[in-house]
């Protein structure tokens, strides 16, 4: 089997079965033609692009689906929200200490600490660049920066897993880094062909609003600080406040309100669940409540979607 055939098979395998049956041969022929004289790199890029559309179809995140349109609507807010996650100097945020240590250490030995320091500094700078790119409508750059944010978040979680013996502390660290990982992935999942479209003039305003909302959401959670784990109804409120509009408004086809909820969800979901898990005394205590909320939301969304003639109606011209 040649590299080209293997790449094609892998890419086609990413498509849902019904699409593969209907279009598989056609896609394979076009792929064969476009890569006939191509080198390995060009073939790999072609295969990646082919596989990416297959994954979009499989996850229903194309430009014509409700999920894809929702992510594209949320993208400027999400880019701003990721900027709001970062610590602000002078607000006694313990994360500023970590950044100061990383900045002082720079590239000095021990080298084993360097990736961690670079990841800390990267997550301080890259979200700002991402917000600027989104505000300017430079979505190709914004997608690369969103990917960088997600990778840096994943790297810090991996480094923490390698370093930390205490599983509670590891879970807490991963929870506090989850906004970067989830936010970056959600931005990457937005269909690129819709990102240029909506509300060109209000884009900087949306990024600014996202940053302000993100900052407020993270401050409400004490800057993801272990000393301020949330008690009482607070974590539930911070979980449901973005989750309810994200699901229920999306079911009604109200994308703007749903996008606002979706943009804040990565910032509050993980830490709220972590705090609730603490209060419930473990996964088993939390599970029945999580299942009940998921079932109630699904039922409500279906009910609301049923009243809509076509919530996933055809998207913008593009």
């Amino acid at each position: 089997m040649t590299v080209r055939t293997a790449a094609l098979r892998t890419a086609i395998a990413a498509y849902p079965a019904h699409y593969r049956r209907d279009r598989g041969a056609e896609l394979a022929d076009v792929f064969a033609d476009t890569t006939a004289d191509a080198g390995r790199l060009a073939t790999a890029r072609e295969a990646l692009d082919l596989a990416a559309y297959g994954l979009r179809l499989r996850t229903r995140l194309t430009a014509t689906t409700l999920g894809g349109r929702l992510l594209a609507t949320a993208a400027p807010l999400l880019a701003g929200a990721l900027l709001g996650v970062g610590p602000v100097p002078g607000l006694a945020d313990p994360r500023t200490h970590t950044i100061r240590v990383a900045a002082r250490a720079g590239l000095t030995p021990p080298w084993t600490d360097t990736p961690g320091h670079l990841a800390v500094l990267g997550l301080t700078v890259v979200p700002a660049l991402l917000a600027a790119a989104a505000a300017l409508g430079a979505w190709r750059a914004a997608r690369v920066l969103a990917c960088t944010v997600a990778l840096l978040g994943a790297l810090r979680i991996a480094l923490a897993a390698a370093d930390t013996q205490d599983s509670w502390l590891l879970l807490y660290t991963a929870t506090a880094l989850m906004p970067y990982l989830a936010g970056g992935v959600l931005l990457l999942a937005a269909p690129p062909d819709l990102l240029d479209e909506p509300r060109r003039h209000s884009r900087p305003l949306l990024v600014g609003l996202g940053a302000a909302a993100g900052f407020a959401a993270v401050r409400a959670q004490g800057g993801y600080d272990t000393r301020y784990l949330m008690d009482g109804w607070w974590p539930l409120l911070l979980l449901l406040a973005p989750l309810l509009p994200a699901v229920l408004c999306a079911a009604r086809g109200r994308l703007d309100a749903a996008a606002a909820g979706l943009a804040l969800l990565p910032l509050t979901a993980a830490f709220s669940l972590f705090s609730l898990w603490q209060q419930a005394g473990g996964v088993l205590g939390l599970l029945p409540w999580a299942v009940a909320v998921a079932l109630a939301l699904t039922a409500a969304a279906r009910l609301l979607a049923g009243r809509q003639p076509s919530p996933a109606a055809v998207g913008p011209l593009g």
Partner: protein
Amino acid sequence: MTERAMQESTLLLLTALADAPRHGYALIKEIDAISGGRVTMRTGTLYGALDRLLQQNLIEVAAEEIVDGRARRSYALTDAGRDVLATEAERLRAVAAEAQRRLGGPAVHARRALA
């Protein structure tokens, strides 16, 4: 529907179908030619755009056939797609005409004469 400017990839795709129905690879080559080699549409991106335009009823499947043992599906503009493309072309023509007028207007000629 055309209050917003159309994305370039959509414009190129509709333009490539304006004179005749075409299959996938022919569309990629045609887009490359129309854009002067500036836009290279990859297979996944092309089918994403085709699916979107099919759903928006701007294009349709014109023919499905087997040529030399290979599956060939040709796509064509619908009447709605033709209207949308014509409107966009007119909008671009008006902008280009205005740009030409301002570039070659009396003020410019006067400035050039003074220079």
